């Protein structure tokens, strides 16, 4: 077990890939077995990640576990195989490992063919997401970031709806366009810094003229903003969400979008603090537009899934607004809102999928009176709807409240106006969600022969209830005691914002794991599973 003790993150990240390739090799006829194996594997990975991570909860925001070893030097630029879990990505990693098996279980019967290949791609996607979340070297991050596209492309393109090919291509090319230009910026900075270590690159960036820093920040920001997606770069999202199979939508909303926000807080903001401060205002403006625009567009949707997709644009606008506020409370709110959105919107997509599997339609007009036919389903949908609206005592409230608070305190010239406008987004959120809820669930039962309600013959079964229960527990837990989920990120976020706002000359704080081994190229797996707490605390106090 020594190898495992030294490389827990490598195991977590690549175990899904190994399993995925095994599943791909299984013959077509064993699709059901592959689905089962895929689920069990993903579940095992979740249990393992839970045991490992919670065993070392980052009380002080330090590194939970880290691995670092020189990987290769190509064209004069060293690349470190550096992975770490710390306060910033702790809960996002758990969210990922949690959502993957949950989604597999939730969409157990949604696919009719090629289940094995789908499960395999899903596991490959998990590798991409986890790898991008824990990567502490920008080259490694870039690899995982791009590699994520491939399984998602096939998931949308093969198992999606009628317009799946268009949606898959749009998703792929849109994301690629951002990341390719980002690659040039990355190369430019790596050339100056002599490597891909974020800390060293940040130092190199601070020596550049402000104009260049600004361009580099824009290149980073656009790549991440496409993923978020931030208005006006969101147009791929409704297509991808609506066409993707349920599992794809859940994971797209639940994790992939988060990586955009995570990219900002992990790389773009700490690496270019001046430029980030400079561009915070336009980003905040775009976020406010996204919040209001997303909500307004969601309101007029006739397809429930499309409504949820646009609500994502609105909710992720909150995340970006919180990050752009450059305040601790706003950023913490954004961190929480990312988890909230992952849970709530993921759950909404799951629920819409459950409805679609029964009724074979997602049009709001096709329903009516679903509450009569599916009381359990309605209950769950109600809870998730309320959480999505941000009702106090559910998770949605805390995140949005903090973000609005942060925006209010941000000190932007128009900060208070932004906060007011964003608050109207909360209101609009209630309007479109409840209005949709009313039309679908309340009212007299839609007796029309062709209607969706007519085709609903069964309420949720035990499997589906088992999927929804943990989500409901989390919704309440996060609403009542959010501290559990933001304690980890508090210290790094505070340190980061102090650095960002500090007058020059700055010292760079990224993560302890990265900082402490700058340029060190010996000892494979420098920090093992049990990272000592002392250096972590030292770094934070710097």
């Amino acid at each position, binding site marked *: 077990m020594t190898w495992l003790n030294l490389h827990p993150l490598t195991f977590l990240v690549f175990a899904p890939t190994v399993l995925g390739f095994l599943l*791909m090799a299984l013959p*077509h006829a064993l699709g059901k077995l592959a689905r089962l194996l895929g689920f069990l594997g993903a579940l095992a990975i979740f249990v393992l990640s839970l045991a490992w991570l919670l065993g070392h909860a980052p009380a002080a925001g330090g590194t939970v576990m880290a691995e670092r070893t020189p*990987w*290769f*030097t*190509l*064209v*004069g*630029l060293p690349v470190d195989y550096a992975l770490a879990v710390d306060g910033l990505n702790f809960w996002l990693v758990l969210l990922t490992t949690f959502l993957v098996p949950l989604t597999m279980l939730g969409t157990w019967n949604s696919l009719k063919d*090629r289940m094995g290949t789908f499960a395999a791609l899903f596991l490959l996607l998990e590798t991409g997401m986890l790898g991008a979340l824990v990567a502490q070297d920008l080259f490694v991050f*870039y*690899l995982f970031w*791009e*590699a994520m*596209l*491939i399984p998602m*492309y*096939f998931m949308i*393109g*093969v198992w999606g709806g009628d317009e*799946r*090919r268009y949606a*898959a*291509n749009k998703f*792929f*090319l849109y994301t*690629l*366009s951002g990341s*390719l*230009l980002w*690659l*040039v910026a990355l*190369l*430019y900075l*790596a*050339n100056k810094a002599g490597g891909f270590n974020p800390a060293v690159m940040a130092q190199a960036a601070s020596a550049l003229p402000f104009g260049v820093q600004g361009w580099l920040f824009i290149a980073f920001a656009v790549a991440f903003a496409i993923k978020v997606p931030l208005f006006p770069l969101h147009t791929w999202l409704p297509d991808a969400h609506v066409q993707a199979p349920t599992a794809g939508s859940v994971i797209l909303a639940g994790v992939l979008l988060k990586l955009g926000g995570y990219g900002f807080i992990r790389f773009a903001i700490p690496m270019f603090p001046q430029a980030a401060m400079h561009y915070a205002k336009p980003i905040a403006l775009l976020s406010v537009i996204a919040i209001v625009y997303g909500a307004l567009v969601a309101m007029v949707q006739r397809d429930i899934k499309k409504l949820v997709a646009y609500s994502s644009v609105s909710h992720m606008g909150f995340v970006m607004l919180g990050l752009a506020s450059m305040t601790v409370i706003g950023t913490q709110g954004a961190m929480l809102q990312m988890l909230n959105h992952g849970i709530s919107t993921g759950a909404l997509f799951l629920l819409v999928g459950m409805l679609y599997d029964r009724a074979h339609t997602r049009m709001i007009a096709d329903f009516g009176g679903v509450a009569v036919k599916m009381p359990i389903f309605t209950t769950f949908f109600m809870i998730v709807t309320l959480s999505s609206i941000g009702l106090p005592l559910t998770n949605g409230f805390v995140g949005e409240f903090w973000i609005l608070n942060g925006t209010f305190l941000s000190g932007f010239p128009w900060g208070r106006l932004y906060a007011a406008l964003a608050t109207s987004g909360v209101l609009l959120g209630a309007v479109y969600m409840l209005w949709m809820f009313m039309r679908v669930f309340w009212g007299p039962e839609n007796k029309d022969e062709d209607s969706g309600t007519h085709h609903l013959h069964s309420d949720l079964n035990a499997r589906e209830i088992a999927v929804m229960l943990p989500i409901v527990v989390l919704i309440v837990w996060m609403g009542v005691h959010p501290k559990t989920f933001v304690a980890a990120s508090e210290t790094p976020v505070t340190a980061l914002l102090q650095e960002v706002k500090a007058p020059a000359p700055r010292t760079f704080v990224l993560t302890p794991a990265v900082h402490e081994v700058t340029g060190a190229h010996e000892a494979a797996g420098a920090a093992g599973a049990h990272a000592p707490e002392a250096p972590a605390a030292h770094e934070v106090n710097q």
Partner: protein
Amino acid sequence: MSLTPSQWAALLPLLIPVFGACLVTLMSIDKDQATTKWIRGAMYGTALLAVGASFWYLTDLWRTGSQPAFFQLHMDRLAQFTGIFVAVAAALTILQSWDHFHQEGWVKGETLALLLFAVVGMVLFASTTHFVVLFLGLELFSLPLYALVGTVRARSESAEGGMKYFLTGAVASSCFLMGGVLIYGLSGTFDLAAAASILTVQGLTLDPLVLVGAALMLLGFLFKVSAVPFHQWTPDAYEASPHPIAGFMSVATKGVAFIALLRVFPGSFGSLGPVGAKMQSVMAVLAVATLVLGNLTALVQSNVKRMLAYSSISHAGYLMLGFVAGTPAAYTGVLFYLVIYLAMNMGAFGLLTAFGLVGEQTTFEDLRGLGWKRPAMGFSAAVFMLSLAGIPPLGGFYGKYMIFRELVGTGHVGLAILGVLASLVSAYYYLRFLVALFLQAPSAEAERLASDRPAVRAPLAGAAVLVSAAIVLAGGFIQYALADGFAKRAITEGLGLLR
């Protein structure tokens, strides 16, 4: 003058394919060659053995290191790299040919003999700085390829493509010859390195005739790598040729032309400073044109082979960008790119054979749904196409990465941005291939035709495809071994650019 044993050893990789070619020609005298199974087996076996032996001797030479030059032949690491490169390409071609020519119903020994001669010519071309030997090498691989493009005489379009290729190729060869003659006339020597130093001493570096000579020679190279505006032959020739031959041309011709260009321009003419700089700016302009035109034209192709032809044009553009950067690391990147490109393109053309598409049948329509029917081939196709588009973590990404990194490092940020935009465009048409394979169900008509035909069996082509896919994957995961251990050593110990 007698040869020392080590010189014989250095010559063996060239001599073995010649022997092999003669043997195959002798075997193909039998008029039943196509139907008699053992003759067919013996011909292909001989060809494969010749290429394999050549490969084996080359790896042996690689272990000993660069050989001193003799007969104007530099059997250095760069030449050994070229030999290994061409031998692998030829071996994959022979494997694919077995199935393809069987499918076409046109099994002839001469194709193998011609292929072996082309191999010799290519190695010769890339291992000399003497103009006459260079020209000999050029013609020794060009003439067999003209014939190979038109080898399936039963199909008139094949002959037409071969003729077109020959006519345009002849013009390019003449220009190349004229360029060499001008350099010779001014310097009095055929050795290009010596000519460069003589011209420098005479203060003729910016003489218009020297510039014209160098430009004409550059034209010859650019024609072979199918750079815009010397690319028009490419789609017609690829479309006309048998799939494996198209693959071989797209890979080996382009590869050796780039390597020879490396030896002549930054290499021999390196001392002719201003000429090199002028040629570099010409390359920059043409690289941009090649990238833009190649990629945009590839977008609208419905024929897979024409798409691959324009794709191969656009890849010439990326490789030319490596020359624009002009650093040793960029040249290492070019060689690494070529290794991966070899596998990606041989694989892509091999897929057509593995799927049993012959003659006219190479549109995207014909590919529909095949990825699911042949999962291993489908998986390989995904590897090739995503790698061609430069998506990490596959080998093609690292090739582009190395070249773009050097472009940015030498201050050509604009060209790097253009390069990534070009690969964004290219992602679209490579995805089309995958869309057809995986995202579209076969049309009812195709289903009906498929049920009438016997199932496609192309085991050797399939094996070649799998080997190619393995190389592309290796390029993504042990990229440093390939780049540092293979490409970089060929540059440092062959060209001496890093010393």
